[in-house]
Every structure is written in C-alpha cells, then in structure tokens.
C-alpha cells in the first residue's frame, strides 16, 4: 500500500487515495517511509502551504480587506461576489458547472431555444451517470424506456455547445461527484454547481458546492453567476476519535438523526474538529455528501495537506500550489458562526436508518423508536423491535456517498473469505467511476466480491434511485450504502435501509441487518 508522505513532517503519512491513472504521481512512500515515486508535482508549493499564514491576500474585486476574523465560507463567498442585484441579493461568480444526462440536454436545449449561449464552455463539464446502464458491455441503450434519448440528446447538445462530456465509454466516466475530484475539476476555494442535490459532496475540497435546478444551471452557464441570498453559517465540530468500525457515513447519519433533516436549513455548514481532520479525502466526501440530507445549503471542510496532495497531478488541477491564496482558505481562529454544533465522535456507533427519512436512523444495535405512523407502516417495523437481525433481500454498494476505492476496500475486507447469505436475492457492487473500477480490479477486489456472490458492475448512479428500468425484486428490503431511504426511492414498495459499506457488507453475509464490528476481516488484504 502506498501512502502520501508529508514533505515537512516525514512521520505524517496520508492515506492513499484513488489516483488518477493519467496524472503524474507526487511524492509517495511505502509503509516503511521509503520514498518510491516522485513526479511532476511542485513540492515547494506544498511546503509553502504548510506555513501558518491566513492573511488575506485575495486581491480580486469584492474581496474584503481582512479586519475581523472571517469564516472560510465568508472568504469564498465575498471573493466571488460580483455585484448586488437590484433587490439586494448577491450576484455570485460560478467557477464550474457540471451537467449530467438526466437534465443536461434539457438545460442546454432550453438555452439554445431562447437564443442564449454558454459564456465559458471550458468551465462546464458533463457526464453520463444517472440513467446509464451499469451492466458490462453497456451501450447507449438504457434499461429505462426512452432513456437512450437522454444520453444521445446530451451528447449532441454538449458537442454543439463545446462542453467536455465524459461519455458512456470514456475511461474517466463515473458519478459526477466521484470523477470531478478524480479529474481535479473541483479545487479549493472554487464555487461549483450542478443540477444534482449531492453536489455538496465536493465541498470536501474546501470549496462552495451545491445542487441547483435546471433553470439555475442555465443561469450559471449563460451569465457565469447565480443570484443568491447569502446563507447563514454553521460549524459542526466533531471532537475526539471515531471508534473502530465507525465511518464518515455514521457521522453523517448521527448528525442528521440528532438534529433532523431540517437542522442545516438556510446554513452553509463547515465540518471541523479532530475527527474530521483525521478523515481521508474520500471519507470527507462521504460526510459532505449528506449535508443536503441535513437540509444545508452546502457542506465543506477547510483544505489541508491531504486535500492538496489528493489533487496534485490531477488532469485539470494546477501544476503547483505556490499562490499564497490557498493559505487563506480556512476559518480564522476567532471567526464567529451563526450556529455551532459539537458532537463527540467517540460516542458514535455504526448507524442504520430504520424509517423513510435519513433522520430516522439509529445505532445498529438499538431498538426502533416511535416515529411517524406512515414511516412504520411503509418500512414494516414496529416501535421497540431490534433493528439488527431484520432479514434483508438486497444489498447495494455504490452511489456518490460510498462507491470510492476506500469504500470498496473496507467492504471487501469484510466480504473476503465469506459468502452472502442464501436469502439475498440481489447483491450489487457499483464502483463510483471507471477509474475506481480499474483500481479495484488491480487489487482483486472484484474477485472477492464476485466470489462472495455480489455482481460487479460498470460505474454509474445505478439503483441508488429507481428510474423505471432495472429494479430490485418486488417488495424487497434493501440495505444500501446510498443516501436516501425515501418511500419508493429505490422502487415502488422497496424498503431501504441506508448504512456504511461495511454495514452493507456485513448484512449481506448475515442475510439480515448486522453490526460490522462482529465481522472481523478473514483475508489478509485490506
């Protein structure tokens, strides 16, 4: 296993990430600390970033001279404020727009019909992820009736507008929020929007990223801006250390279950604290991914060395991090937030949803609490029953929440040397991108999953949601590494329990909702 090594403090090893195959490698080290690779990445720039200096060096119009301590949110927002609208909203510059095939063609076609053009096509990207087939040997044809036209229309519209499309057969195709970081499209300090609610995922890189509708996507492409009311600020601090077997997914579900799906409404949420700093970039994406389920305008984490090391050498990332600008991207020590929440990370257990909203989630070893009658009826679990041990029919590992290489490794560690329960009617692993897929195959993870009884798929959003094509067996109960357990989300009458990939893997083996801590890895590969 390779780890990234901090150039200033050799004792600091950073968890290895899914590397972009076509990018140069930065300095890396083995477990023993021996340098093994060195590439075209400017280490001097990285060293500069280590210096403690948050002085305001942003010279752009709109950037405020720093007199009072500022939040990271305020620095990025004010740095992107172009003007005020006549009604007093802010006109905020948008650095990146990312479209997908489900709504991309619609937005581009509508724009063309009104005689408008994309202002800067070089900063707009598109991908086929939402309804693309994930079975091996796929084509433009989708299992959803009529889905093909969404793909072909998007392709034609992107070509016409001069927009880069990561198409069905592109080797970097994958879920928007997986490939955008893989390609270095998201960068610290940027504003990025996409017509997908889980765009908040990319806030993990210290950027303001949020989901929008099609009209807003058009507005951002045509004007390079969005008209926005400034959200309030919130900091969610996770203190302490996560217990073994507990993940970023559990942190997110814990937060939402404690503070409700409306808890973050109207707020831009910064995640902070030692338990957040300790997360690798992929886990940070998982945490930020669920910010929308918390009702937040966006979720983000101040960039640190892990962030810059992850992005170094990626296709669209800068070749060096030498600008002092990057150093300003953190909340100042005395910055005041409109709201603060503190959570002791050491008290979090593996979480599983019991109901039909992400806030209806409990520790895997807890009993189902009293909730809305409608939720109990839909999910078929009464108050007071033990959640663990509930038989399941389907296991799904995938989605923009949990489909990256580290997710697959952790799930595979549980699955290796075991078989899924004969009760399971369908078990799927859908890698978040083709790059993740190749990476996993090089490590033999596909073989581990297949030997256990999982299907191994091409990348895409797949059955995170039901689009009318492929579905789960009728009335089935699923355990899923996804983000939403809404009524009908994965199909009519399908009962969804959301959890970490580890918990999904353990439950697939058990044939019932299970505590991943009861499944010690059998194989040697982690």
């Amino acid at each position, binding site marked *: 296993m390779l780890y990234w090594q901090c150039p200033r403090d050799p004792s600091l090893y950073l968890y290895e990430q899914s590397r972009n195959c076509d990018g140069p490698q930065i300095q890396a080290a083995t477990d023993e600390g021996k340098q093994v690779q060195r590439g075209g990445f400017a280490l001097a720039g990285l060293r500069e970033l280590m210096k403690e200096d948050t002085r305001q060096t942003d010279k752009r119009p709109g950037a405020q001279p720093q007199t009072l301590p500022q939040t990271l949110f305020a620095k990025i927002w004010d740095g992107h404020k172009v003007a005020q609208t006549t009604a007093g909203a802010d006109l905020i510059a948008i650095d990146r727009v990312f479209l997908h095939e489900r709504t991309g063609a619609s937005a581009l076609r509508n724009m063309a019909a009104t005689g408008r053009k994309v202002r800067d096509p070089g900063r707009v990207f598109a991908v086929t992820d939402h309804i693309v087939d994930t079975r091996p040997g796929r084509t433009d044809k989708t299992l959803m009736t009529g889905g093909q036209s969404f793909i072909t229309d998007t392709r034609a519209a992107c070509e016409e507008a001069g927009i880069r499309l990561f198409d069905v057969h592109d080797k970097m195709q994958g879920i928007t929020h997986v490939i955008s970081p893989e390609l270095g499209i998201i960068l610290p300090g940027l504003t990025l929007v996409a017509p997908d609610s889980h765009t908040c995922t990319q806030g993990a890189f210290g950027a303001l990223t949020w989901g929008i509708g099609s009209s807003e996507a058009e507005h951002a492409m045509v004007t390079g801006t969005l008209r926005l009311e400034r959200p309030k600020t919130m900091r969610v601090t996770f203190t302490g250390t996560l217990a073994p077997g507990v993940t970023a997914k559990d942190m997110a579900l814990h937060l939402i279950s404690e503070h409700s799906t409306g808890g973050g409404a109207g707020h831009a949420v910064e995640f902070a604290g030692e338990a957040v700093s300790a997360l690798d970039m992929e886990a940070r994406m998982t945490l930020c991914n669920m910010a929308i389920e918390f*009702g937040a305008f966006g979720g983000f984490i101040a960039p640190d060395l892990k962030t810059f090391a992850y992005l170094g050498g990626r296709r669209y990332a800068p070749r060096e991090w030498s600008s002092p600008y990057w150093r300003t991207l953190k909340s100042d020590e005395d910055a005041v937030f409109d709201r603060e929440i503190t959570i002791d990370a050491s008290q979090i257990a593996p979480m599983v949803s019991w109901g039909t909203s992400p806030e209806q989630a409990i520790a895997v070893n807890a009993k189902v609490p009293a909730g809305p009658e409608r939720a109990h009826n839909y999910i078929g679990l009464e108050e007071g029953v033990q959640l663990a041990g509930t038989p399941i029919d389907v296991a799904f590992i995938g989605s923009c929440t949990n489909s990256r290489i580290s997710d697959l490794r952790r799930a595979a560690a549980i699955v290796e040397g075991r078989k899924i329960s004969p009760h399971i009617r369908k078990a799927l692993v859908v890698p978040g991108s083709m790059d993740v897929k190749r990476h996993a195959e090089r490590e033999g993870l596909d073989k581990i999953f297949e030997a256990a009884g999982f299907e191994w798929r091409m990348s895409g959003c797949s059955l995170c949601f039901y*689009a009318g094509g492929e579905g789960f067996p009728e009335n089935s109960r699923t355990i899923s590494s996804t983000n939403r357990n*809404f009524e009908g989300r994965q199909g009519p009458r399908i009962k969804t329990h959301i959890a970490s990939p580890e918990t999904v893997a353990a439950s697939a083996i058990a044939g019932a909702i299970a505590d991943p801590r009861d499944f010690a890895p059998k194989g040697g590969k982690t």
Partner: protein
Amino acid sequence: MTPFPQPLIAKAAPLMADNVDTDLIIPSREIKTTGRTGLAEGMFAPWRYADPITRAENPDFILNHADYRQAQILAVGANFGCGSSREHAVWALAEFGIKAIIGESFGSIFRGNCVRNGVLPITLDRAIVEALGGHDVTIDLAAQTVSFKGQSHAFAIDSEAKEMLAHGLDAIDLSLTQADAIDAWTDADRAARPWVYLEQA
C-alpha cells in the same frame, strides 16, 4: 413567466405530511422526455394513482377530490420538496396549476426552483398551515399576507424572490443587465486565479 396573481384566491388543498421529497412529487420513472412539459400527469404518481401503470385513481388522495382537481394552493408540512434537485417537480406542479405552496418549511433547492417558475413558496407556522387547509385562502404577495376565515398572517420573503415573482421576471435577462460588472470581475479574477480558467473542449 407570468406575474403572480395579485391577489390569488383559492381553496388550499391540505397535504400535511412531512419530508415530501421530489421523488414523490415526480418519480424519476415519470420523467420520460428531455422537455419540460407533459409532467403534470406523473405528479404525485405514487399517491395519486392506485395503480401507476393503468392510472386508476386512488380516491383517498386529496388532489383526486372534486374540490381540489384544479387546486392552485397546497398546504404542506415540514421540509416539503426535499431530496433530488429535479426541477421537474416544480414544472409538474406548475403545469397542474399550483401557484403557491404554503408550508412549515421547504427543501432549499426546491424553494429556489419554485421562484424561478412563478410558484410562490410561503413559510408559516405549522398551526396556521394546518388551520388554513381546506379553506378559501387569499394570498397578497405585495402586502405579504395570507388571509382566511377573517384572520390574516404576515409572511416573510426575500426581496429578490418577491420582485421576480411579482413581475414575472426572467432571472437571466435581469442578470445580463449587469454584464459589465460580470466582465470586469472575470477579467480581474483571471489575473488573480489563472488556474480557474480552462481551455475549451
């Protein structure tokens, strides 16, 4: 976009469940074309139809009652329109004829999508929303009031959304009036953060 009626008077259809997500308002399988029309039929399909395939109606669903088949106002619970960012949810509601939604709270992306499509989202205390369901309600956007049964309640709305709705403004046209400011900002930014700017495909 047509300006919001001044005033809007209609009977509010009570739909008080919490966390009604956009998948429920318009399931993905009901989005069959890349266009923005023809979506009203799929609106609330899981609740509205006893059989979503044959479209046999569920007689218990509120919008299937004679009084609400042409409803223009919905009275909803907390976090209405949460979930997927699909604007199709608002396009479907607007095509059906919904002009205002009064609720305890809304999903943030959905709320923005409403304003862009001439649908007025109004946030009021749950007790008031529960009380007005099933009654004739008068919405005065200019005065920012909701009135029913002789009572009147003020609601808050940011001035940007109010202006857009009241005059039926096109947001893109409006922003393009500030094109000079956008160009100036972009030029300065290109010098300050050159890495942001990429070559065209």
